[in-house]
């Protein structure tokens, strides 16, 4: 499997010279299988450039949404495959207790928030609600589960013949824990992440910021490192950077966190354009 980061920012797209290295686009990750299967993890603003990189001959795209907060779906209407009448676009994502996935997405992809109705997009659209346990897409075996984040939110564990990737871009496993980490069976997201070759995980806040943002659904750097250690991953990509954190600030935060945690796993802070071949 080959993994490419097209958007690494959390909450709000934050372009500008001060964020050029880590990137200003919101969450979007491309996962390619050896058999050509394409998974797109989240549809933040990064999905626009991903779409431009795809050949028009590609006839099936699978978009796996973790949740429907704006920073994870804002790019959807600008994804080229949705305008290709030859293409099948399969969208996985969580329903709510009262609305199915299609209805929830229509709230954004319709006027006045967006000029085009979802039903008017020319590609063939298919909706699949998660969590639905385990399922297969091409060579990938995928496990989904609800995780700790406001509003229905899932994480994805993606297993290929040669590697396992876990994607938890918005995740607050320390919420309410009087001592973190707890045991694995009481830790949100543990089962998805256990033993993964590559973990892409929320690391939005500094430890000081987290104190005043408990319950916002995101992890501090320290909690993210502790979660990765608990899960026994081989490599860790801190992700979903706060819009207020410039490149220089992020350099300092990650260097300090690595010095403090002394992790036994590889750490590669998420930068737009970075590629990984886990396993």
């Amino acid at each position, binding site marked *: 499997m080959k993994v490419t980061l097209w958007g690494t920012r959390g909450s709000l797209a934050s372009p500008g010279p001060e964020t050029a290295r880590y990137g200003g686009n919101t969450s979007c990750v491309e996962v390619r299988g050896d058999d050509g299967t394409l998974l797109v993890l989240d549809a933040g603003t990064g999905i626009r450039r991903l779409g431009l990189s795809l050949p028009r001959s590609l006839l099936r795209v699978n978009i796996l949404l973790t949740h429907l907060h704006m920073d994870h779906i804002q790019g959807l209407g600008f994804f080229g495959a949705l305008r290709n009448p030859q293409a099948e676009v399969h969208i996985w994502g969580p329903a*709510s207790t009262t609305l199915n996935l299609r209805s929830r997405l229509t709230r954004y992809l319709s006027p006045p928030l967006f000029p085009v109705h979802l039903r008017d997009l020319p590609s063939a659209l298919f909706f699949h609600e998660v969590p*639905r346990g385990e399922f297969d897409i091409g060579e990938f075996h995928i496990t989904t589960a609800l*995780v700790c984040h406001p509003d229905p939110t899932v994480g994805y564990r993606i297993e290929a013949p040669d590697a396992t990737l876990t994607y938890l871009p918005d995740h607050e496993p320390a919420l*309410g824990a009087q001592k973190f980490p707890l045991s694995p069976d009481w830790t*949100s997201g543990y089962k998805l992440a*256990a033993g993964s070759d590559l973990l892409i995980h929320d690391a939005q806040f500094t430890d000081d910021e987290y104190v005043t943002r408990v319950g916002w659904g995101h992890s501090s750097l320290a909690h993210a490192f502790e979660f990765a250690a608990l899960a026994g991953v081989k490599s860790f990509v801190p992700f979903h950077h706060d819009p207020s954190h410039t490149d220089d600030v992020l350099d300092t935060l990650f260097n300090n966190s690595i010095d403090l945690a002394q992790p036994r796993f590889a750490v590669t802070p998420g930068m737009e354009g970075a590629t990984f071949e886990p396993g």
Partner: protein
Amino acid sequence: MSSQKEIEMILARQLASYLAMPIFIVDPQGNLIYYNEPAEGVLGRRFEETGEMPVEEWSTLFQPTDETGKPLAPESLPLVVALTQHSPAHRDMWIQGLDGVRRLIEVTAFPINGQAERYLGALAIFWEVKA
């Protein structure tokens, strides 16, 4: 992969750990998977000492009886009603804590149903009735 509790149960435990009311949480099979510190005071034993307990054990361990001292059948306990009938239930009863002290308590239990028709367990709030 190790087993992991569903997110709703993790959040229920985290909420319970902050509340001043005694709370019991059981899984769909009735296994007692958590009780909080206020519950420890009523039950007379810390959760870290007892750990998780199967329904056959915890439903008789505290020797629940009615006001006449007649033992209560497990199926009449509110938590067991919530588990088996998937409906809320309430009653008072006498229990003998693991510290040997008999106490009159009231119990309210309700099932925990997740999205997509997932039945996750039940939760009971109970409190000691002071004479």
